[in-house]
């Protein structure tokens, strides 16, 4: 069974190794808070149509690293390249301008607003008079929700009235609606039941097939083994290593997370 999956992964992973520059390259990133190095000279990269897992304990620095890419934090050192070109990401608006979308662990929804307002927050559609066009936005929201979560009906309730899975689908809709090329998912299944977790997994496969690059932050080694093409493991702010999922076992990843050691290279 593993074998079959592996072949599938390799075939999906066409971008890497063919000489094109990576979609995203984060080089030598460092960021510290009050003297503590949360991220210490870490480099990761991501190719189109690829899912790269970021693994590590709580406080390993994975969320911090990714918040540099989504514009929530400013790095102290390092550079970010998109399509081989250096970009400046000073705030979340810059990240969005570079087609980087993020699904935060907290979902980052305004609980008092409805699904449509949240979907378009910061990017409202307007009428020729410059007023927000609620009806047009609701129509778009209904369209995308019909694809992502056909059972979703509560378009006029504040998102505080929605279930965990429904809230998650609003956050996902917001990330995929605006033609993301780079998607960051911070523990997207942490609060979900098995059925909804499967939905997210299906979605990841679907987005991958569209050539979107995904950074997936997760605690769960099994989920990473199943969904990712490569995994970068962090410990205490440092990068332990990046491995091809095809080359490692669950135990290899676990020992990287716990011991902070690279697995011994397999003979090619």
């Amino acid at each position, binding site marked *: 069974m593993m074998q079959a999956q592996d072949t599938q992964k390799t075939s999906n992973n066409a971008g890497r190794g063919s000489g094109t520059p990576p979609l995203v390259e984060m080089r030598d990133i460092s960021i510290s808070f009050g003297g503590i190095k949360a991220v210490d000279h870490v480099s990761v990269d991501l190719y189109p149509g690829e899912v790269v897992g970021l693994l590590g304990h709580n406080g390993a620095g994975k969320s911090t690293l990714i918040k540099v890419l989504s514009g929530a934090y400013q790095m102290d050192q390092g550079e970010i390249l998109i399509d081989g070109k250096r970009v400046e990401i000073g705030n979340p608006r810059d990240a969005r301008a570079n087609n980087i979308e993020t699904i935060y662990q907290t979902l980052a929804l*305004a609980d008092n607003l409805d699904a449509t307002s949240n979907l378009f*927050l910061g990017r409202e559609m307007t009428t020729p008079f410059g*007023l927000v066009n*609620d*009806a047009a936005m609701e129509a778009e929201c209904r369209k995308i929700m019909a694809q992502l979560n056909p059972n979703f009906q509560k*378009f*006029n309730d504040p998102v505080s009235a929605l279930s965990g899975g429904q809230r998650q689908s609003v956050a996902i809709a917001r990330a995929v609606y605006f033609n993301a090329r780079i998607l960051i998912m911070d523990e997207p299944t942490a609060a979900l039941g098995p059925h909804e977790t499967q939905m997210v997994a299906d979605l990841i496969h679907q987005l991958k097939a569209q050539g979107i690059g995904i950074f997936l932050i997760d605690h769960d080694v099994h989920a990473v083994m199943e969904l990712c093409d490569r995994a970068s493991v962090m410990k205490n702010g440092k990068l332990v290593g990046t491995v091809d999922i095809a080359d490692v076992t669950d135990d290899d990843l676990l020992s990287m997370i716990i011991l902070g050691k690279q697995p011994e290279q397999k003979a090619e």
Partner: protein
Amino acid sequence: MTETSSQPVPEKAKPSLFQQLELDMRLLGMIGAFVILCIGFNIVTDGRFLTPRNLFNLSIQTVSVAIMACGMVFIIVTRHIDLSVGALLATTSAVMAMTQTELLPQVLGMGLNNPATWAITIVVGLFVGTLIGAFHGWMVGYLTIPAFIVTLGGFLVWRNVAWYLTSGQTIGPLDSTFLMFGGTNGTLGATTSWLFGLFATGIAIWALWSGRRAKAAHGFPVKPVWAEATLAGIIAIAILGYVYIVNSYAIPTRRLQRMFEARGETMPEGLVVGYGIPISVLILIIVAVTLTVVARKTRFGRYIFATGGNPDAAELSGINTRLLTVKIFALMGFLCAVSAVVASARLANHSNDIGTLDELRVIAAAVIGGTALSGGIGTIYGAILGALIMQALQSGMAMVGVDAPFQNIVVGSVLVLAVYIDIVYRKRLGAK
């Protein structure tokens, strides 16, 4: 409510009358409280409360606090507070009083009641108010000093800047055109009031209709036609009813006589002329409608509510929440200046204690009107109704002859009670 019509769930009770009208229950509760209050005072005062004269006065007394309460809604919705609005009103009022009585006559040589005086004065006042508000907002947003502290400091600073500017004196008389913004000195007159009433009714019905059309165009569920018609009817009766009341308040004969004499005409015998809508109330209506549109239909308004609901989410959505804070406080300062025009024009002079305790009345009005101090929730019409309820309570008690200390004791208790009822209501509703 719409869920009922779109979700094919059986076992759902038939939507009640109020649900079909899609009316805000809290709004109905407040209107109910206001009506009960009015009828109660009317009975106790043997019918002196619900007279055109008293309702006219009630509306012009409410305007100043109500205008500021509209701005306070945005402040509180974004989880801030402004304790300095009364003091800011005093400073802008002092600036405007000095501009029209000292600065313009002495520096520009403009005589008393020069036709440009009122306009220049108001522009200066609005500018100063906006500037001070923006300064508060900058300290809150960019220097991240809590709004409570910034405006507590502002409360002391601006109250005493006003004192310093006028040396503590009462400044008057003010420009005669300027006084028209105060109330009895400036009203639209009966005919214009009716025209305005019809115009406003037309706009309201058009707004209802175009909202319905936009929903229908996308195939969203809409209210039944009878519900829409009932709503339109209620709005029309409210607007035209108010016009009828203020038109029924006749200008006293002697005053009317003087007005005719001023124009060099003689007053026909037995002439009765109604006041009509006060210009100050017109200003409040313009402010309320504009800010309601801002709150519901502009990005600025959407961002205010998003920031109040979840500041982090707003920031991560690319909203510049710091600049937003500056804008909100600048708007508050602007509205304080508008209130200063109305308040000083109504009193016909600038006095040193103008606007004293207004910060508390304004916050109370917003909170009674359903604005949640935890942020994210609040309406403009709620704040205006809150201001109206407070003013009705205050002037009703004065009319009944309740001692001054008891008046404030009652108002304070009502504030706490109103917020408690709101908390119970929200808990029962299941919304946070």
